[in-house]
């Protein structure tokens, strides 16, 4: 059984249909990349997985639990799933280490010292331990994004959702963030990544899904989808990317 099962999910915002009968299965330790134009539904799909959005039709099962039936403990679910956003969203009134230890202490009930220890371990891994007592406004964009990832990791999630986490970064800061994601993938974390970074997707993904107007038009291993896409629209999309010099 898959770790994540999306079954025939549809979602609309007012008159705008954003997801149309989407089916997706993600196995444990699998890394799935979602590609597609802006507005194709990538972000919305991710946010349905941790119930930041409610689906209109269909069902989603995570770790054997149906989360769309209204009876699930939302907070418990979100402790299992880490999500990182394009705008990093660090808490500006707290230091870096406070950002990382807040949820483990309050949502998981960890002691202050245990949470701090784990946080420093994680910060060390990304080389930002000496920034532990700084406020986010003193860090570069790339550093803030890596802290955001580590903040999510501190909760020891079973699934990580990354929503275009490099799109807002200066190009020279993208590499350090991608390196961290690479390490996560190699360590066996189950991940669903929405991204514009095609070469990165080709490198880390087990499976790539192309979303077009709310539908998963094509789903295939990266070697296949980038080299020889089956659908016309996939081809169009990829050729535009190549033209823009991003592949």
């Amino acid at each position, binding site marked *: 059984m898959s770790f994540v099962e999306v079954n025939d999910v549809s979602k609309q915002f007012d008159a705008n249909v954003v997801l149309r009968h989407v089916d997706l299965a993600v196995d444990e330790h699998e890394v799935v990349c979602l590609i597609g134009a802006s507005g194709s539904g990538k972000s919305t799909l991710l946010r349905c997985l941790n119930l930041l959005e409610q689906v209109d039709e269909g069902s989603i099962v995570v770790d054997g639990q149906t989360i769309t039936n209204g009876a699930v403990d939302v907070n418990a679910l*979100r*402790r299992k799933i880490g999500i990182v956003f394009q705008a990093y969203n660090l808490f500006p009134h707290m230091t870096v280490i406070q950002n990382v230890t807040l949820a483990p202490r309050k949502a998981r009930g960890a002691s202050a010292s245990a949470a701090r220890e784990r946080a420093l371990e994680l910060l060390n891994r990304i080389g930002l331990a000496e920034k532990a007592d700084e406020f986010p406004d003193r860090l570069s964009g790339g550093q803030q994004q890596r802290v955001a990832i580590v903040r999510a990791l501190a909760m020891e999630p079973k699934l990580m959702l990354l929503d275009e986490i490099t799109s807002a970064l200066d190009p020279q800061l993208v590499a350090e963030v991608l390196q961290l994601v690479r390490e996560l993938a190699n360590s066996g974390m189950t991940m669903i990544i929405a991204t514009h970074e095609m070469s990165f997707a080709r490198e880390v993904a087990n499976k790539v899904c192309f979303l077009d107007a709310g539908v998963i038009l094509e789903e295939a291993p990266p070697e296949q989808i980038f080299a020889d896409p089956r659908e016309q629209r996939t081809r169009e999309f990829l050729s535009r990317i190549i033209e823009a010099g991003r592949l």
Partner: protein
Amino acid sequence: MHEVLRAFFSPRDFRVALPDVWAGFQLNLKLMVVSEALVLVLALTIAIVRGLPGRGAKPLRALAIVYTDIFRGTPLILVAFLVGFGFPGLRMEFISTRSNFTYGVIALTAVYTAYVTEVYRAGIESVHPSQRMAARSLGLSYWQSMRYVVIPQAVRRVIPPLLNDFVGLQKDTALVTVIGVAEAAQQAQDYSQTYFNFTSYVVAAVFFILLTIPLARFTDHLIALRERRERAQAT
């Protein structure tokens, strides 16, 4: 010109009026400190109630709206009369036997809570929804995300208007003279009616001004401190 100086700025009258006006001003200080403390807490509570999600909280939200509408719309002097004369008039145990000072605190607190609630509410709503989203995504509950993420940011943002309202409160403590509290304005009036010199009013004014200046400088300092932190969002 000489007449004006003598009537408003007479050094001799300043010295003579000072002790009584100071004695009265201590009442203003007490009124201010007690009311401010109550307002800070009550207003935050009502602002949070105002923002409670869900259909079940609708009656509570409605109550919060009614409260702020009523007390922002009623002049403080009317509320002071209502409390200062109305409560004793009810002839009820406890409610009718409080001191005029207590009634003054109640009136000031009731009115200023309504103003400060709106200030807090604006602050809470100005915190970007992505902050709440990030907190909830980490598994923090609604209350935890409010307490650790939203409200601390909201309060820091509204410190200037908060302190502005408190300067208003400090000055409005003078109004409770109408329910018989012998604070600074009444002492000044007493002096001026006996000696026909208005310098006593200037003495009272000086006390009030001396009180608000440090507060104004402190506000400036806090604004500068806060500017730094919020820039994290922009990078």
